């Protein structure tokens, strides 16, 4: 018997999930690992900022980054205020740190809308085909036909300024890309014999869709999240400029727009600080996202023209 069934040497010593293989692949990209480290630092800052915010809220006091100090306003960088202070005497570094919180909150909340929406619609369209597919394709073609920046602005505008408007606006528009990718994958996977096998065991459509196929396309969600995160950050800046952004909290977009007037007075550090804080996160996420795609699914076509 030449079949290797009984030959244990044919298998590696430890079970290998596809994730661990991908991780090994990812680790080979040094730059991406460094960038993952940068993202990790931002995540830590996010938790720190979140705790500052919540502690102040629970104690019902004005958080330190919001305490106004009109005597020490528009200060230049110093040991006490590394990036100086703004028009109301807020420390710019503390505000940047809160900006990390806002950026992450936007990304997380928006993803909480767009990932279920895109995933579910994509899965339904790809799996059931026929009129379900036709309807969902119509839906996303319609949403996609409106230039995304215009539809995001419109929704944020009617919902009203603030986090809610931004999140709903981006969430209801950006799902299209994910939906397309997921639909394509479901189309591919439903042809596979393992799906027929699951059906022949008596598994229902929902079980096949969610328990069998979903794990096979989950990596797309991760890649999409990493690659759209930068888009959320950059869009927030535009929305803030248009007056439909965050209010009452120091987001990066708000800071950049506030710095606009003072730049002409030669105050460059405020703009520079916010730009740098954004830049490193966006850069790191872009590189990590690319590396993740290369490691998890090199053939995935995520290249999208950055709009506006």
């Amino acid at each position, binding site marked *: 018997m030449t079949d290797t069934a009984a030959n244990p040497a044919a298998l590696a010593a430890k079970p290998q999930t596809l994730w661990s293989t991908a991780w090994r692949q990812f680790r080979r990209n040094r730059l991406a690992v460094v960038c993952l480290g940068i993202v990790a630092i931002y995540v830590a800052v996010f938790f720190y900022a979140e705790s500052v915010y919540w502690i102040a809220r629970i104690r019902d006091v004005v958080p330190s980054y919001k305490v106004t100090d009109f005597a020490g306003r528009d200060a230049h960088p110093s040991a006490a205020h590394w990036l100086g202070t703004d028009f109301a005497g807020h420390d710019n570094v503390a505000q940047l740190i809160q900006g990390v919180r806002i950026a992450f909150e936007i990304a997380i909340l928006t993803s909480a809308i767009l990932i279920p929406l895109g995933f579910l619609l994509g899965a339904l369209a790809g799996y059931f085909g026929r009129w379900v597919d036709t309807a969902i394709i119509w839906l996303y073609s319609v949403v996609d036909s409106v230039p995304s920046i215009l539809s995001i602005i419109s929704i944020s505008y009617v919902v009203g300024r603030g986090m809610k408007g931004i999140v709903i606006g981006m969430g209801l528009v950006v799902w299209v890309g994910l939906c397309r990718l997921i639909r394509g994958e479901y189309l591919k996977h439903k042809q596979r014999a393992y799906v027929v096998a699951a059906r022949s065991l008596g598994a229902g459509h929902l079980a096949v869709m969610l328990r069998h196929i979903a794990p096979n396309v989950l990596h797309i969600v991760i890649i999409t999240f990493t690659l759209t995160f930068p888009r959320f950050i950059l869009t927030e800046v535009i929305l803030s400029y248009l007056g439909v952004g965050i209010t009452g909290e120091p987001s990066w977009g708000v800071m950049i727009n506030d710095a606009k007037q003072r730049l002409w007075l030669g105050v460059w550090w405020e*703009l520079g600080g916010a730009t740098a804080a954004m*830049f490193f996160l966006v850069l790191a996420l872009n590189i990590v996202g690319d590396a993740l795609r290369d490691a998890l699914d090199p053939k995935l076509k995520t290249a999208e023209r950055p709009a506006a």
Partner: protein
Amino acid sequence: MTAYIIRRLLSVIPITLGVLLLVFLIYRVIGGDPAARLAGKNATPAKIEQIRKTFGYDKPKFFGFWVQKFFRAQPGAGLGVVPVSGQTVWEFCLNLCSFRLAVVSASGQTGWNFKPAQGATRLAVALPDFDARQRYRMEFRVEAPQGCSLRVLLAHPGAKPENQPIILEKSLSNNARTFVTADIAPTVDLDAADGGTAQVTVEITGGEATVSALQVWRAQSNPFDSQFWQIVSQFAQLNFGKSLQSNQRISRMMADGVVPSLCITTPIFVIEFVVAVALALLCAYYRNTWLDRTFVVISIVGMSVSGLVYIMLGQYFFSFELGWFPVWGFEGINYVLLPVVIGVVASIGGSLRFYRTIMLDEMYQDYVRTAFAKGASQRQVLFKHVLKNALIPILTNVVVAIPFLYTGSLMLESFFGIPGLGRMTVDAIYTGDEPVLFAMVFIGSVVFVIANLITDLCYTWADPRIRLQ
């Protein structure tokens, strides 16, 4: 092939209708009452009512037999009026799902609570411009303890108080909450005095009660006389309405804005395209060398900076500090130069990376390997095969960018004071000029739909494989 082309042509219709529906949903449904939004924060109900009437926001959204009627609640004998702010999620959903999409109360909110103090049991509702020949309907919710009874009375201008017809009489049983509908039928004998203000009185006896979500509607004969179909028929005649700010025709404003916008966006578009494709070819030629990697790094770095920062820094340094270019205005070629340069710099990173990916994808195709194996030189392969085959994805990308020519660059135009469509849009957002926004978003989408159609038709012509799909 012909079937495909016809199908593709026909598909423009549902997509365009869909886009119109989407924009309509955004501006008329998702954000709540558009009239309240236009009226601003501290508007009186009468002001809101006037806006609603002018723009036809009192009509049903899609389909319906009733038009929203304005009412004013009058705190009668001992009645306290408590406005409830905002819609609850549930009410919002009801509004979306139910057929009566027109239901939004006169105050711009979904409900008012009328809480009678001790002994007070009357709630008076004033209906301005009452037409006695029309049918009206009033709906509200009552919360009352057991044993209460309810009466709805109509008092018409000119009629004596003792001559009040009773519209509805009802004893409230044990339900905690009752939904009451009172139909106010034509009262012919009163028609001499229409145009005045009628008064409907809700009387509750036997206990303290809360009346909420009170709405009044007027019947309309054509159920399709609704906001959506009105827009469809208007837009079909290329009538986009007038701007709230300048009171100009929107189509006129757009025609004026197109040229300045194109002056900015066309050069950006062309320069960016040529430079990006040239650099992408260079990267493909020198793939995996330091040159290629440098460009990749530069493009990712370039993509990671906000477009707004490019504009702010560019304007500050070159216009303000160095004074090489004018800061603001649109009076000559030198007003356009800086915005164009900034536009190219801000967007070239993304394009370069996109085109490079496309070219490298082609580079690793079998036919390219075969060509290399047959002894073709790098340059031959690059220009004869790769560029030719990459043309389709490149073309798609270009066509997809065409609507941005039209919408202009929102931020560039408003920073440099260029009177194009982008600035028009930004101004409309600042001033809440919704008809302008509505039209801009819709036309922008239609341009995209048409551009997309043209690409697809070009494909069929260029690439026979696609016809088989």
